């Protein structure tokens, strides 16, 4: 019980750290550490398969997604950073106080314990539950993954198509217009020619 308590305290501190850290990269790393602590807790609560999923997906894949997203966005200038930091300190100052106050209130008040837990069921195999009893869940997961694939393809499709249309117009000897390019951020041929010189 002591170990569980220490792990739960570490989990809460990890979550607070990931929220309060101003640098997004460090916040993402703190989130990964929180996932690792949650994995250990899941192993202790007799859920090894879910723990492995949590470690590989949440501590691994999701951290990579966060790092990729952060790397595709620019850093602020030092002046912007200073202004942002002051505003940020004001907004996030209340969180540690709120968490400590909530912990105190919950410890003192507690929850009513006059309920009975259902009878412990026979321990089954996760694989048989997932493939035999939760087939709709599996179908839902496949559909969500497919939807996610198409969603991401659509999000990044316009830029590739726009560049292709501009290139085709150039081959025909036409100057690509905004309509051809389809995106105001795309450069036109005269601008491209200027930038080459």
């Amino acid at each position, binding site marked *: *019980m002591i170990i*569980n308590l220490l792990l*739960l305290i570490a*989990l*809460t501190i990890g*979550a*607070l750290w*990931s*929220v309060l850290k101003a640098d*997004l990269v460090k916040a993402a790393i703190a*989130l990964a550490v*929180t996932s690792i602590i*949650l994995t250990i*807790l*899941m192993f202790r*609560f007799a*859920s090894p398969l*879910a723990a492995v*999923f*949590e470690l590989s*997906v*949440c501590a691994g*894949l*999701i951290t990579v*997604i*966060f790092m*990729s*997203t*952060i790397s*595709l*966005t620019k850093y602020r200038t030092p002046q912007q950073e200073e202004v942002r930091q002051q505003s940020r300190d004001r*907004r996030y100052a209340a*969180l540690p106080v*709120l*968490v400590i106050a*909530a*912990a105190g209130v*919950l410890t003192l008040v*507690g*929850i009513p*314990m006059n309920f009975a*837990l259902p*009878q*412990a*069921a026979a*321990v*089954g195999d*996760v694989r*048989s*539950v*997932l493939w035999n*009893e939760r087939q709709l*869940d599996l179908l839902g*997961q496949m559909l*969500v*993954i497919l939807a*996610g694939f198409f*969603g*991401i393809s659509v*999000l990044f499709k316009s830029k590739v198509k726009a560049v292709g249309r501009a290139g085709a117009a150039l081959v025909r000897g036409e100057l690509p217009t905004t309509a051809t390019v389809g995106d105001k951020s795309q450069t036109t041929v005269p601008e491209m020619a200027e930038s080459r010189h």
Partner: protein
Amino acid sequence: MSGNTAQLIRVMAIFLPLLFLTGFYCVIVTRNLIRTLIGLEILTKGVTLLLVVAGYLTGRTAFSQACVITMIVLEAVVLAVAAGIIVNAFQHTDSLDTRDLENLKG
């Protein structure tokens, strides 16, 4: 209910709301799109822990693990699509601030 079980429920009743509070606070207060996702992730971790503990206390660890695996898959896909939306929004507005997303403002 045994003493250990009651003790575990009392401890979880303290720490799970703290996790939810941290996640909600982050989502509500932040103006950064990426940090909103971090808040969402913390909320999901709270729900994951709740499911695991519920399975442990009732003896239905197989069922709770199946639910957790489903939730982790959905969480990963939602995060990937949300990250794509954020990158796309950044390419259009050159900012991660939610206050700069005002093209549809009435």
